[in-house]
């Protein structure tokens, strides 16, 4: 489905203002020079659900099936990047694949 709501991080019933705010926050966090792919995804998502007409059209005509990544994003979204602990470092240093 390439769920634009997931990309923007807004609920499916979000209105124009909420979507616009989420888009602005997203592109501020991932500007094109830092993460061009994420920026492009945000732009595409925003264009897809910017207005009420867009949202209804997306629901009707976007026939792309959901992906495992989307299912995971809904069930257990990825959070902030973390740092592995010393034990995990040790495992890799010892050659554990």
């Amino acid at each position: 489905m390439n769920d634009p709501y997931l990309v923007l991080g807004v609920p499916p019933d979000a209105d124009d203002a909420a979507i616009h705010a989420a888009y602005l926050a997203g592109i501020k966090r991932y500007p094109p020079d830092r993460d061009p792919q994420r920026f492009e995804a945000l732009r595409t998502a925003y264009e897809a659900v910017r207005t009420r007409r867009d949202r209804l059209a997306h629901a009707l005509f976007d026939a792309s099936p959901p992906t495992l990544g989307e299912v995971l994003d809904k069930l257990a979204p990825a959070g902030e990047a973390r740092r592995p602990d010393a034990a995990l470092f040790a495992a890799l240093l010892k050659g554990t694949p």
Partner: protein
Amino acid sequence: MKKQRKPLPFPKPTAAPSIESVEDTAGAARRDLQAGRFREAINRYKDLLKQGDAPDWRHGLAEAYAGRAGELTEKGMLKEALVIWDNRRQLGEAASPSPVHADLLLRLGQSAAATALYRQAQPLGDEAAIAALGAKLAAHFLAGDPGIAEGLAPDDPILVHGTAARAALAAYCAGDAQALAASLAGIPFRSPYRDWAQILKALQRLSEQPEAAKTLLARVADGSAFVNLRRAAELALVPEADLAARLTGAGEAVSRFALILRGWGDERQALWQEATRVGSSPQRLLRLMYRHRARLGEDWVRQGALRLVAGDLPRSLSWLQEAGVKRPTPAETALMAGWQADQARSPGRIVGAWHHYADVLGAEAEPVRGSDAALRLALVQRHADRQAFILQSAGASGEAGELDQVVAATMGRSLIHDPDDTDIYLRLGTYYRQIKDFKEARHFLGAALTRWPDDLQVLTASLDLALATNAFKKATGLARSILDLDPINTGARERLVKAHIAHARKQIRALRTDLAMKELDQAREWGGEAARERIELTAAFISVVGARRSDRGTEVLREQAERLGGGLRASLALGMEAVAVGQPLTLVLRQAGLAKAKHGGREDLLACLARLRTHLDGGERLSRDLGASLQGQLKAAASLDLSAQEAEGVCETLRRGALDEARLAFATAALRRWRGAPRFEFHAFEARYRGARWAKDNDLDRITSALERAQEEGDNRTVHRLEELLREFGAPFFSPHGFDDLDDFDDPDDLDDFDDFDDDFDPIRIVVANLVQSMGLDGLFNMLGLDPKLKRQFQEIKREQGTDGLVDALKVLIGEKLNGLGLPTLPRPPRTPKPPKPSKPKKKTRGSDEDPPDQMDLF
């Protein structure tokens, strides 16, 4: 119970037969080694070493041991591999300590043996091996292996730099950037921890500077002791879309490390593992979604399920049943049919599917205007056109068809449910204007103008409609509105000027010069200086018409011709205007003194062609009469000194104006200066043969050579054009002039033999002979629509059996065609004495009669 030994997969090699020489065995051992047959190589080298000692054999055996140990390690037979490494070590100096051996020792927890190996390597002086072994030990030292420190000298770099390396690890894990930087500063460039330092720097930059992180990671080689960390960090940088594929090939520790870096929590990782364990086919994903439907949301799961099965209907309906999902409703089925139609990309199918879905939605209940249901219905009613560009295509063709009329009507109805989409009014207005249903166009654009009076797109579309319907007063008002909103809208201004001039010309044709003058006044008001020349030229013809071809008219025309330079530019401008206002071209040019005008040099030529280009850019054509009138003057200008770029520009413009005689002259002149230049070869050939179905062999050869040269020069446009020409004209045998013996048919006396019908009168044979005589062989072939293969066959018959044989063969074919038309059988003529042969006339020169009149010699 003692494990029974499995039989060996290969028979144990026996000692080399006595008849095999030492050289033979050494050669075989080398071949075994190269082919990866390590066991066989080991046995052969061992045999050789029993017979004597040679450094090559010892090195070969060491290599074979290392290869075999590697095989065993890959199979997980670590202890067995270690035995092989020990055997290798017994070879002494021939077997330098290997990092792979050290790696195995470390994996088996034999740190002391690994450090011993490292110490053993140091006096041998193999810097690369020492560095690799040192990095292995350093990685294990960092991992907390206590045995490493015990086996090393206190001043060994592994220990000396190890303190800083461990501090850096602690600082990174604690997120202390300052301490990390300080610790990394304590690791020199030539250190066993060099790769470690690169990786920590990269990890620091993963989020903020991913490209810099990638660069740092790229410095860590595949054989590094720290390569697993590099792989994990790289995996953390992989785009989301590629992650699944990359994770599949990665080990568990590497994946876990990467996923933590990406912010994946334990639950997400567990779900990922669950999903990848069962596979990610649509059915399995459907089951996973349905199992978690409470958290995912019932509606989201339902919508996702429909999309998962839509691509594989009707087989996939069983997946829904298996996952416990309800069967699709009629509306959902219609929606899925719409998605399938979109994929099929057939306009008819798209219209059918989406209009059906609209009917299903409309039948459920009349939607309340402004509701989601109403907007949804409107969107569905419009989707077919958005998907298949039906109105745009039909509009561009200017002709209405059944499909686009249905689509337009449905789109029109959609405005009842959603009247707020400007684009729909514009699309409908443009479509109806293009198919000349001006009433409907006015209906939609009028409604749009009422709703959005200041919308530039609506105003521009309304202006176009007003101009198309000659509503100049309205067009003026609309143009003023556009220019009020957008004062530099040159498009609106230009369109209006053009329309006024066009209207003025129409009035001139109707001899209403006063009205024409008013139109030109309007054009002057809007056009300003830029349009002055065009307006004045039209105004001149008002005077000419008003003077009713008197001396005053001639005077005006001469003034205009003089103002325009009296050459090519003047001829073109006055000629085009004469055609536009319906005045006799020849008379106008004669009165203007341009009937036999000469070109006015390079500037005049370029100005003339610039004017012609502008005329053609406006979508207008050059009249045939004017074109014919200009060709002579243009041809005379072909000798002018032009740059290659100018000459090409001239040829391109003449091509667009279909002035092929002149183009041929320019291309030929250009080829004299730029011999074999592919772009001019193209123009020369195309100008000569435009509309023809055959070409001379040597001309085809020339464009074949030009094609090769254009390919070498990378001139893709000319390559494409020449390829098109060659495709169009096919092989050389299309040319009647490619066969000298066809000249035989030029002389009717050569067909005298066919008159001998006393004994075997054959009317079809006579017809064939006459056709061959009058049309030439290729002309006849083309008339009969023969394919190249058949043509080749007839040519072969002609070569092998002569004219008689050819006519006989053609007779069969033509006879069938004539009979197929139901023509009456030709009466047999009465027997008459054969008349005496007239004296043989002089043979016609080749290409005299059969050449089309417009085809001159090219070179």
